């Protein structure tokens, strides 16, 4: 039985064509593919073998509490969960009110809390911690579902956000003699301290940065020179020198009776540092405002302050949100430098754990874990920032 079978047409789609086009399009390309593939396979095999058989991950899981909150007293940890709950609720409401842009940020927050919950599962911290974080992660979406149905006035939400930082701070630090016993910032540590340093650093730096940016564009020479001088001075020196100054020299410049603890001094240093970078971001936003806007404001009879407050800044600040998220990410990574002045942030805790006798020599495990935490946080945030940029329509209008 013979049947005329047609030869199939040349494969132009499908995996083989894809391989040919993307990996083996010529002799050189094929060689590159094979060499890189072999090297990559070897490296991944080495890392995989080490991570699965040799690495002592118990060093990390046994000390997970230290990595997360430092020496924050164990019976007070619920205060951290409550702060996270405040944040989760606000993020959920914002996702309902502001739409797409806020939703990506809320989703990121939820995902990160979920991951922390899963991490706690393999540590001796206990099931309560796991439940706390999973409940927080879920709270974001529950509140979001509610917020879509009831209308929350935007102004109320804004005030709530503004109040959240001082409230969280008070909740975490507490007062002596109240149901919230005082927890000195000196015992705050780990991821908690890392995140707080970055959050405080960027939020306190924001007003200062806006003032500096306006000052740099001012028509008054004295104001302009002072602002420019500050910005360029700070941007020209490394963060380490500023932290060193905040740690050792700032106390000399303040009256003797002002006793700032180390964490507060580091926060001060980071704020002064990031203000200069916020200022440059805001300046970029200010420059993007068409002159027509300012001329129109003048034509309407608005004064200089009114023009800035009601016309220029609202537009400029909106445009610089993504840039400031980027700044926040790099600030989060830069806060590791407080390890050098002896603070116990995530990296500092890692060094402290390495000094314990039973984790001797576990350098790679601990540093790889810390790098992994930073990678997850900043990768998630940079993806969120990228979506935020598109949702805000920066550069497209």
């Amino acid at each position, binding site marked *: 039985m013979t049947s005329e079978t047609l030869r199939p047409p040349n494969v132009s789609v499908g995996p083989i064509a894809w391989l040919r086009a*993307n990996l083996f399009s010529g002799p050189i390309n094929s060689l590159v593919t094979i060499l890189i593939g072999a090297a990559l396979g070897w490296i991944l095999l080495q890392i995989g073998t080490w991570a699965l058989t040799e690495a002592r991950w118990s060093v990390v899981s046994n000390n997970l509490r230290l990595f997360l909150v430092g020496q924050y007293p164990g019976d007070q940890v619920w205060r951290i969960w409550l702060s996270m709950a405040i944040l989760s609720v606000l993020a959920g409401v914002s996702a309902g009110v502001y739409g797409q842009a806020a939703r990506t940020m809320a989703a990121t927050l939820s995902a990160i809390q979920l991951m922390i919950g899963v991490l706690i599962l393999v540590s001796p911290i206990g099931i309560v911690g796991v439940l706390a974080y999973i409940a927080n992660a879920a709270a974001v979406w529950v509140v979001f579902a509610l917020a879509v149905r009831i209308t929350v006035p935007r102004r109320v939400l804004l005030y709530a956000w503004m109040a959240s930082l001082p409230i969280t701070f008070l909740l975490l630090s507490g007062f002596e003699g109240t149901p919230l016993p005082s927890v000195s910032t000196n015992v705050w540590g780990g991821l908690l301290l890392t995140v707080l340093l970055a959050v405080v650093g960027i939020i306190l730096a924001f007003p200062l940065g806006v003032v500096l940016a306006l000052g740099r564009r*001012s*028509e008054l020479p004295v104001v302009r020179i002072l602002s420019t001088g500050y910005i360029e001075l700070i941007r020209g020196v490394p963060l380490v020198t500023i932290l060193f100054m905040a740690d050792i020299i700032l106390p000399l410049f303040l009256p003797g009776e002002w006793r700032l603890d180390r964490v507060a001094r580091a926060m001060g240093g980071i704020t002064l540092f990031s203000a200069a970078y916020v200022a440059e971001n805001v300046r970029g936003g200010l420059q993007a405002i068409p002159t027509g806007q300012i001329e129109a404001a003048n034509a309407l009879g608005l004064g200089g302050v009114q023009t800035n407050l009601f016309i220029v800044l609202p537009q400029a600040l909106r445009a610089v949100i993504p840039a400031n998220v980027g700044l926040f990410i790099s600030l989060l990574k830069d806060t590791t*430098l407080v390890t*050098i002045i002896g603070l116990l942030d995530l990296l500092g805790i890692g060094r402290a754990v390495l000094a314990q006798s039973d984790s001797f020599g576990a350098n790679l495990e601990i540093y790889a874990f810390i790098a992994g935490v930073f990678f997850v946080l*900043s990768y998630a945030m940079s993806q969120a920032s990228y979506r935020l940029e598109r949702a805000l329509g920066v550069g497209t209008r």
Partner: protein
Amino acid sequence: MTPVPSTKKAGAVPLWRDVRALRIFGQIAVVVVVGLIVAWLVNNLTSALSQRGLGFGFGFLGRTAGFEISETPIPYTATDTYGHAFIVGLLNTLFVSFIGIILSTILGVVVGIARLSNNWLLKQVASGYVEIIRNTPLLVQLFILYFAVFLQLPAIIDSLAIGDSVFLNQRGVFLPGPQLTSTFGILLGFLVAGVVLVIVAGRVASRLEDAGKPSHRLRTLGVIGLVLLGVVGWFVAGGQAVTFDLPVIDRFNFAGGLALSPEFSSLLVGLVLYTAAFIGEVVRGGIQAIRRGQLEAARALGLSEGQTLQLVIFPQALRIIVPPLTSQYLNLAKNSSLAIAIGYPDLFKVGQTMANQTGQPVPVIILIMSTYLAISLVTSLFMNIYNRRVQVLER
């Protein structure tokens, strides 16, 4: 802020509504407020210093330092002055920054091009590298390199060897060290002549092209001339102008060659890997910003891939690349201050030791900060000059 055109006669506007007067008053007010704050700070400082019985001044720079520095590019001993120690630290910073800038530029360009490669695997590897490096802190990377890589290398006896000239062990990296011999001057003379030849050929070629005449590949001929002169010079100098001093294993350590300490190696490798990821993104952004039409036009003219890259894409991309590249160089120089975390005696580490020993942190930090500022300013000055050269190409 904007001047209000005054239609009334001068003097008709009361002083408190006159924009010009308000401006002057405003500036005076700012100066007074800033001045008061500074005066308050300085007042606090002087009282704090007198309480602790500390003086203020740079006199300590002339006193004996009394501490050792592990790596000294210029001769230094503990009996030298603080000023001398500071210079050693500065040279160490400049040394690691300079080498770091060169190496990270090379690696960065490779990474940037690899991210645009049409080889899928290469592209993925390059972007994986960039994402991992950019999303983790440099300090953690340095700790990994120092504590988990360079300090975990085998002992001297079991050194990892690449051929018989490069050795890696706990004490650092040992490379063949170039040694200039007495006949090096001859080779140098030939090389200078070659460079002059290239410059002259380039000038003449440009002038011919400007006059609309063919340049007869004068530039290529100039480069060939340079290579020939170099080869001739090498043999005239007896083939011994530069010798390589190989590291040789001694009883306890390596002798000879170029020895790089684990601290220096970790810092350099860390800075290069970190900065190259950022430079790679800058390069990729610059190349992608070139409009597609340029590429298509180059193809339509029959230029090869290499020619397209060299003659069409790079000259245009360079204009976009140079300004952000400058800030990456500045970042590298500033990031070199993280040396303190792994114990490389750079400017900041030496400065901190000085501050601790002299009990004079304020003058020392002023010295450190102004030195970093000066490094930043000089680097941006050079990059701005280069930037202007690149931008002039625009027609």
